[in-house]
């Protein structure tokens, strides 16, 4: 018998499917602790992000188990574990997927069959989330994904998959919602739109959706430019944009090309009324540092910003706890991961059980409100595909070398500056 392990796991999978129960389900007994498997890139290219997410998860688990008395609005702030499970504590079992989808699947299987976890949380990289959640689906174990944004993840018809973060499509919808609301507020009309996106999967998907949404929402799309991210120059791209003379450019770029495009805009004197950027390069810490005052007035989408704390005291209180431990603020990633575990804990508590089916049912019935979250969302409520329908992105504008929340308007810390001044009229 040369390879007993894989064969056994195939048999187990088969058995689990046949009986229609999670394999580990029967073996899981009620106990004083609830094991939750977490799969993140703890080594490899995304290791620094993985470490940050691990910190956020540990903070969430610590608050649930030991309390954070000062923060009354936060669920479980009283401490003492999950009240409806006789105070059972949360225990996180970490697994490292190294950014590799195959490893992610193997680790998910190990957590389910050997560690017998009640549910899984992960996995940051969209492609790893895809494979790891497939394993969870097969075994019938709830998989909560706090931060992968590929829209296709919730289009698979999975029964055990739940995602709290808004996905890429939603973010593009946000752009158009913003334009509509801004027009109503400032009583003007946004002119023609051009899209300017890099040409890998992300940029192309975004381009397609923008091309579909712009006419639907009543906007004139005058030009669609895609470009290779590893360009040595963007002259012809910017000239093409300039010739189309749009008043708004919607742009998706990674850092290198975001910097290059901004410099080329300035050099060639291309001054649209606004650049509406799709995160990535435009929210990298290097973006403002490198461009200095040339970065001013750009609006980019974000998922979270520290200045939201002025509108939601919960954000500051939780961030202070995080800062005290790790000497770093929350980011768009760690804040979402923190929230993910809180949502899962809420569901397990309401389920009052560690049975997978009970947890799944409770997750599907989740109804958390904005004031109990550290995210700029309207709440957490899942639809039939497992997508949180109350999530939304925010838009931030760079003013005085900082990202300021400008949308949604009820969370804004600053009025939108529109249009951005022309290059030759800047100080």
């Amino acid at each position, binding site marked *: 018998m040369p390879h007993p392990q894989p064969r056994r796991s195939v048999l187990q999978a088969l058995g689990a499917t046949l009986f229609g129960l999670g394999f580990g389900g029967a073996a899981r007994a009620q106990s004083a602790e609830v094991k939750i498997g977490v799969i993140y890139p703890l080594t490899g290219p995304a290791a620094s992000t993985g470490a940050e997410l691990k910190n956020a998860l540990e903070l969430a688990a610590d608050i649930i188990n030991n309390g954070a008395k000062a923060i009354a609005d936060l669920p479980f702030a009283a401490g003492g574990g999950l009240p409806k499970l006789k105070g059972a504590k949360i225990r996180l079992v970490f697994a490292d997927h190294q950014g590799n989808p195959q490893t992610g699947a193997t680790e998910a299987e190990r957590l389910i069959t050997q560690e017998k976890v009640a549910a899984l949380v992960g996995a940051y990289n969209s492609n790893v989330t895809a494979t790891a959640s497939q394993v969870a689906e097969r075994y019938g174990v709830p998989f909560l994904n706090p931060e992968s944004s590929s829209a296709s993840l919730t289009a698979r018809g999975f029964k055990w998959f739940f995602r709290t973060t808004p996905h890429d499509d939603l973010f593009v919808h946000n752009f158009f919602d913003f334009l509509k609301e801004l027009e109503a507020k400032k009583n003007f009309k946004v002119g023609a739109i051009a899209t300017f996106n890099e*040409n890998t999967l992300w940029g192309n998907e975004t381009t397609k959706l923008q091309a579909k949404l712009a006419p639907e929402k009543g906007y004139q799309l005058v030009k669609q*430019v*895609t*470009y*290779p991210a*590893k*360009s*040595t*120059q*963007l*002259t*012809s*791209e910017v*000239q*093409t944009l*300039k*010739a189309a003379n749009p008043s708004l450019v919607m742009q998706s770029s990674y*850092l*290198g090309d975001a*910097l*290059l495009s901004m*410099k080329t805009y*300035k*050099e*060639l*004197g291309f001054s649209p009324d606004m650049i509406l950027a799709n995160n990535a390069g435009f929210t*990298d810490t*290097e973006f403002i540092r*490198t461009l*200095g005052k040339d970065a001013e007035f750009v609006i980019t989408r974000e998922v979270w910003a520290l200045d939201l704390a002025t509108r939601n005291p919960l954000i500051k209180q939780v961030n202070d706890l995080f800062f005290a431990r790790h000497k770093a603020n929350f980011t768009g990633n760690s804040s979402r991961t923190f929230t993910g575990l809180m949502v899962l804990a809420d569901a397990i508590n309401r389920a009052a059980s560690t049975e997978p089916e009970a947890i799944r049912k409770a997750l599907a019935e989740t109804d958390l409100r904005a004031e109990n979250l550290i995210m700029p969302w309207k709440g957490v409520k899942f639809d039939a595909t497992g997508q949180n329908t109350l999530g939304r992105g925010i838009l931030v504008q760079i003013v005085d070398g900082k990202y300021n929340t400008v949308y949604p308007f009820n969370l804004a810390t600053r009025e939108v500056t529109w249009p951005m001044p022309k290059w030759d009229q800047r100080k």
Partner: protein
Amino acid sequence: MTAEILLQTLASGVLIGLIYALVAIGLTMIFGVMDIVNFAHGEFLMLGMYASFWLFALFALDPLLTLPLTVLMLFAFGMLLYKLVIRRIIDAPMLSQIFTTFGLMILLRGVAQFLWKPDFRSIEGSWVSGSVKLAGIQLGRPQLVAGLGAIAVTALVHFFLTRTRLGAALEATAADKEAAQLMGIDSHRMFALAWGIGAACAGAAGVLLATFFPIFPEVGANFILLAFVVVNLGGFGSVTGAFWAGILVGVIEVMGGLLLGPQYKTAVVLVLFLAVLMFRPQGLMGKA
């Protein structure tokens, strides 16, 4: 589409083309003299950029001021690389040579990422910034200076090759290694010199780019593919060929992008590359 936009694009194409030329000149020289394709050539460019960056960040010395120093450093680095590594594979099969320089590429990128992190850096507040208006067209000052710098360095290399004894010896080695050796020319010295000059040219291109292009460990990859096209187009081993071909590729890239659509800009250049391979494999100025 107005004449102004065409003229503007043409000018931008020529300026970026001059940088391509400078990168390609080093590459074509190394190949011309010793028939080795240097896949690590883009990394010389990267090292030149980082050298400028650190001299600027640590000592507040402007990249243009430190250009001679950086070029010397890269020259020494090229020679050293030859003595330590390339010398051992001169008579090795071509596949080993390819693996060696390819390995060097990965090594240098890895070391750069280890030492300087994968972050994007840039030089802010260099002497050259902003843009100038010339005959109705807008030219970035860093790009303009880089283009002029590229012309100057190319002229210097050309002068060295055609007007000095050492340059003549180098050309002789390129033409016929054995015959040159019989004339008393030390071929190992010439090879080392070719690597030194090759690295120095790429380093100079790096310095000139550093004033307007982001600096990161993988930056060489953006330029090396185009450099190979340029070398091929100009003719392997031809310095003047590489110069004109560099400009041509720059212009074709931006004009093709403007006229056919930016998503085709790389395709236009690569179609040209294929056409040259098919109909004139020795390149536009290469000797058959």
